[in-house]
């Protein structure tokens, strides 16, 4: 048991988790799959297929924008029949371009291995292994969906395998640990090798006895792995909270865990990494919890990515008559969905169908009575009631100063609020407003900087010009004095031309305005200089400023 604790949190009297009894069941292969080109985290994928194209299972349909181009593998062999806009799982019910993939029936379990297995993975470099994760389409399966190859780009001291389910009802990770512990343990070894982590900790909730036993039975494969049991307190499974509990340290505000040498990976990600490295399997399936009293036969399912919720629910026996709410994710942070034609993605860990009596009734909001229950429950030690007051008054900056950006949106505050205030909604919109303001300020700062620099540059050029004209006037006066002295007209012109080769750009374009009276030789010399200058510009457009003006910044393309 870990000596550290998170602040606040909730001990939820949750219904028994569905996975406690049932084994992982297979969801029947659907005939049509939908793969959105915008992932749940809002990042767009680059499409690599066209309608009508046949794809094999594991083949790249699209790739992400990370350095290694983590792909979206085809979950099934078949044909791309269309790319159309479909509703995705998004708080605003947005649509996104979606690949429609019809299965051709040429798909078997044996076909899953489309990449060359790397049996000698212990001898491979981190980059090779990261490439493998990218070409197998491995992303974080815990929910955020960050590309695993990208997340492991920096070496860390500690790798934490997150097996602590974040929310009640969700049981996919526990089921995975119970039934496929070897994959998780070996996957931990792979991820630890990539990250160069000396400490590898597998975190489980203290109530997952079967899962812990299953993992311990496989520990001989990777003895460096340490199993840690953490208290079942929501949101213990949150990345930052888990680090606090296991390491006793906090991730600095606004930073990523790698800043303190820690990386957290979901256990399902580890298992998928092992399948990709040792068996050459791309990420085409995932384990999804189907729970709630709105489902006839809830359970944990092995689901092909891209399956619609409707098909998954059908595998779970369909809806009960009092099914009232469809939720993607858990009951505290999950997203309420408008219909079941939305497809599961790589990050969909649970589908809840809550019955009428399980769900929060929409009640009129009562004013905040500042009871502080929210502050007691907040795992980040924010003062939610103060943030609410500031946001209601439109003071996003004030809320930002009180740590609005540190809110992890776990929903503890909104859950305990006796006034039923949708606090997290307020914080989300406040964060969006803050981000908008920050972006606008950045743009304004940039524009102001450019404007000031341009003004300085123009002033500097004007000063240079004045100085050059003055210098030239002096030179001409001296020259004329010299000419008057020698009366040798013929010698002056070649000397001036020869001089022009080095002095061409020190002469401004308007030398005549204030110049003293010139004789013919001076005019000839000026023409020669002008020609030389134009030639110099054409030959070396960017190297136009010679040594005399080298303190100036290089010329900018947007110069008038």
């Amino acid at each position, binding site marked *: 048991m870990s000596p550290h604790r998170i602040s606040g949190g909730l001990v939820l009297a949750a219904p028994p988790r569905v996975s406690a009894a049932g084994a992982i069941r297979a969801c029947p292969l659907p005939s049509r799959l939908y793969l959105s080109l915008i992932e749940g985290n809002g990042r767009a994928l680059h499409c690599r297929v066209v309608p009508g194209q046949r794809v094999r299972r594991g083949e790249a349909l699209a790739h992400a924008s990370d350095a290694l181009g983590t792909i979206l593998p085809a979950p099934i062999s078949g044909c791309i029949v269309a790319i159309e806009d479909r509703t995705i799982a998004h708080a605003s019910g947005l649509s996104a371009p979606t690949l429609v993939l019809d299965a051709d029936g040429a798909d078997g379990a044996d076909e899953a291995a489309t990449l060359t297995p790397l049996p000698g993975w212990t001898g491979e470099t981190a980059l090779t292994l990261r490439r493998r994760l990218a070409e197998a389409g491995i992303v974080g399966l815990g929910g955020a969906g960050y590309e695993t190859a990208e997340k492991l780009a920096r070496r860390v001291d500690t790798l934490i395998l997150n097996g602590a389910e974040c929310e009640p009802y969700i049981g996919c990770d526990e089921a995975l640990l119970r039934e496929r512990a070897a994959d998780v343990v070996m996957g931990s070894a792979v991820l630890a090798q990539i990250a160069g982590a000396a400490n590898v900790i597998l975190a489980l909730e203290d109530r997952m006895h079967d899962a812990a036993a299953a993992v311990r039975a496989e520990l001989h494969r990777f003895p460096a792995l340490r199993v840690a049991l953490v208290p079942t307190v929501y949101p213990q499974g949150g990345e930052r909270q888990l680090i606090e509990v296991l390491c006793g340290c906090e991730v600095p505000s606004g930073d990523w865990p790698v800043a303190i040498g820690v990386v957290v990976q979901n256990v399902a990600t580890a298992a998928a990494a092992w399948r990709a490295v040792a068996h050459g399997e791309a990420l085409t399936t995932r384990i999804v919890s189907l729970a709630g009293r709105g489902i006839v036969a809830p359970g944990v399912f092995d689901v092909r990515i891209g399956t619609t919720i409707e098909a998954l629910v059908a595998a779970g026996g369909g809806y009960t008559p009092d*099914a009232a709410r469809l939720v993607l994710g858990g009951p505290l942070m999950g997203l309420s969905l408008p219909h079941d034609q939305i497809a599961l993605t790589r990050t969909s860990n649970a589908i809840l169908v809550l019955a009428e009596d399980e769900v929060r009734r929409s009640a009129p909001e009562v004013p905040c009575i500042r009871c502080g229950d929210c502050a007691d429950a907040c795992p980040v030690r924010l003062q939610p009631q103060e943030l609410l007051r500031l946001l209601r008054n439109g003071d996003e900056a004030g809320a930002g100063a009180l740590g609005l950006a540190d809110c992890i949106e776990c929903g503890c505050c909104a859950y305990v609020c006796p006034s039923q205030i949708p606090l997290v*909604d307020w914080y989300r919109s406040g964060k969006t407003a803050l981000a908008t303001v920050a972006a606008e300020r950045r743009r304004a700062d940039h524009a102001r900087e450019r404007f000031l620099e341009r003004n300085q540059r123009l002033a500097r050029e004007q000063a240079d010009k004045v100085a050059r004209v003055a210098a030239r006037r002096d030179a001409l006066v001296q020259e004329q004095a010299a000419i008057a002295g020698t009366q040798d007209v013929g010698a002056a012109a070649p000397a001036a031309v020869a001089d022009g080769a080095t002095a061409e750009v020190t002469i401004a374009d308007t030398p005549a305005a204030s110049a003293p009276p010139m004789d013919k030789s001076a005019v000839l010399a000026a023409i020669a200089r002008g020609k030389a200058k134009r030639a110099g510009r054409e030959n070396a457009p960017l190297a136009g400023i010679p040594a005399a003006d080298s303190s100036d910044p290089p010329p900018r393309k947007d110069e008038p």
Partner: protein
Amino acid sequence: MKTFVTAGAPHLPAPVRVRRVMAEVLLALLPGVAVHVWIFGFGILVQLALATGAALAVEAVALRFRGVPRGPFPGDLSAVVTAVLFVLCIGPLSPWWISALGMLAALGLAKHAHGGLGANLFNPAMVGYAVVLLAFPRLVSQWPAATADLPTAAHAIFEHVANASWDTLASATPLDALRQLAAQGRQSVEIHNDALFQRSQPAAWTAIATAYLLGGLYLLWRRIVSWQAPLGVIGGCVLLTLPFWLFDAELHASPLRHLGHGGLLLAAWFVATDPVSGCTSPRGRLIFGLGVAALTLAIRRWGNHPDGVAFAVLLMNAAAPLIDRVTRPRIYGHAARGNDAHD
């Protein structure tokens, strides 16, 4: 395709609602009211009916003037809690209009003029009590020397006239007696045996305080209140009075007497824990409680009023936003005093 109604997270039902919080507080006040009736008679029941009626009436009118739909508000029971707390502070045989006036000040002035539930800076019940105490100190501080039955109580409340017979019915509170006797230079043992003090029924007051303590422990057990504010008040009182009492028990009252004879326990469990006008950070609540105890003792010792709980609470209410500001916990991932740098 099956469609669903969407709603924001969280999706689980709320564990506690405001109405239930208020109902639990009322339940916890029951022992105190019961002991009150047992000792002082039915006067308090008449006052409760009066004050509750006045509270709901003022609340309804105020909501109407503020243009707030009446929907959930009178049902949240907060006005009833205010009425009960106010009644427990005043003498049970005070004239009927005292309750009406107190509720007008409590709900009209302290609560709705500040923006209603959740927006008031000062505890409404304490504002109501402070107003009537300052305006009619004698009328609200008279306590029956004997149990009053319902007709007697009603007669006294509704046809209250300052006649000679009233003085025989009424008595001072123990703190009043203590104050008068101490002013005469009496010592502890003498005071204890004095007729004036005995007539103020110190044992009865201790019994009522004990009932408040029981109710408070119930609230603590039900997690309606947190322990910091009550501990601040009780612990502060003990800390401040124990050394003096140990030093010279003849001159100084014991901590138990300080706690048992006045309104400190009522304040500790039901007023200092008021979420709206109190502090919200845990350390803030502790400081709030300590402040209430210290100010109450200071007013008892040096002030003009026998018991200063209401004033102490109001002063601390005024300080609560500042206390909350300086006792904000360190946010996860911020340096030790990083969050203060933003202020």
